[in-house]
């Protein structure tokens, strides 16, 4: 093993005998472009909707629920696809999210949500993770489209204008604090702040 490594180390250390310096530079440059472009293209492929709903877990649960909401069907026909809300748009953050997403591959392999029942049981955990992520980045994925600076309060309903001009303007709240469950159905919200009574005593409904 040691000999094997040493042999290749010697090859790598030796200056090229037949290739010109220029060729090596040009070839490295071209290879760099191909690698970098290929890498990003492949990563963008994992951001497409067909990729996301390639698994039945997404296609039969969250994607179905999305289709009734304003983010899928609306008067102007502008819609959000999965990655618009669930993947950061900036490259570094995107890479970080994609690395976290390897856990989802694990979940897929071991079938952690491969039935509707399993999915519903796990939904609060999955949703909480997304809520925390969006809370931490100040609802960045919402703001990629919905800019506070461009909101016309006179075009909003009174309730919306009141909330946006106070809590959102002051920064005490961020989008996800109030707008949970707008694209998918909510899990049992007992125990979730703002959704359940402070006494933690939810109505006795089963």
């Amino acid at each position: 093993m040691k000999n094997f490594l040493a042999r290749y180390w010697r090859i790598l250390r030796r200056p090229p005998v037949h290739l010109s310096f220029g060729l090596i530079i040009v070839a490295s440059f071209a290879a760099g472009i191909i690698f970098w472009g290929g890498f990003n293209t492949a990563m963008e492929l994992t951001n497409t909707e067909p990729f996301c709903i390639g698994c039945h877990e997404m296609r039969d649960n969250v994607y179905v629920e999305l289709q009734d909401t304003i983010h899928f069907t609306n008067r102007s026909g502008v819609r959000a696809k999965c990655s618009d809300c669930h993947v950061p748009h900036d490259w570094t953050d995107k890479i970080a999210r994609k690395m976290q997403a390897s856990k989802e591959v694990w979940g897929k392999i071991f079938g952690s949500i491969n039935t509707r029942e399993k999915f519903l049981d796990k939904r609060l955990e999955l949703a909480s993770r997304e809520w925390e992520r969006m809370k931490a980045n100040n609802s960045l994925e919402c703001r990629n489209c919905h800019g506070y600076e461009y909101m016309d309060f006179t075009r909003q309903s009174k309730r919306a204008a009141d909330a946006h001009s106070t809590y959102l303007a002051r920064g005490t709240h961020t989008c996800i604090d109030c707008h949970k469950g707008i694209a998918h159905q909510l899990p049992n919200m007992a125990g979730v702040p703002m959704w359940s009574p402070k006494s933690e005593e939810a109505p006795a409904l089963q």
Partner: protein
Amino acid sequence: MNKACLRIVLLACGLLATAAAAQQSGLVDAMRGRTPLAEETRPPVLPNVENKDLRRERAYTMQPPTIPHKIDGYQLDKNANRCLFCHNRDRIPETQAIPLSVTHYMDRDGNVRAAISPRRYFCTQCHVTQTETKPLVDNTFQDVDAVLKRTGGAQTKAERTPAR
């Protein structure tokens, strides 16, 4: 044989005449209009939900107030109650929404509970939105005040009887 035939023809004629008479006398399905049964009606355009946030008058004392805003996509099931997100007792300071009346915290024995009574949980059973459209049928409902004014019934019977 001939008799039976004649009977069927007569019956058919009678049915047709009745149907024609019914149509002439204005017995038309209010929802279908004059569209023949074999054809589909053209559904009216969906009206918009009134979203002005202005509270409306109640037609009678016990009428559940109507919802003065849109509730599109509001989740209201055993997992989450989007209405209570704003209208629950402890959310009022933040949202300035109208709080639930105390009756909604009472169970059927009249005990006031900490949380909303399960029988009151599904808000849209009683509270509904209103749309910007004309009523489908005429309505001759009169407010109780109008009735009292007309009949002079605001007084009790004793008051109405002239004093001796």
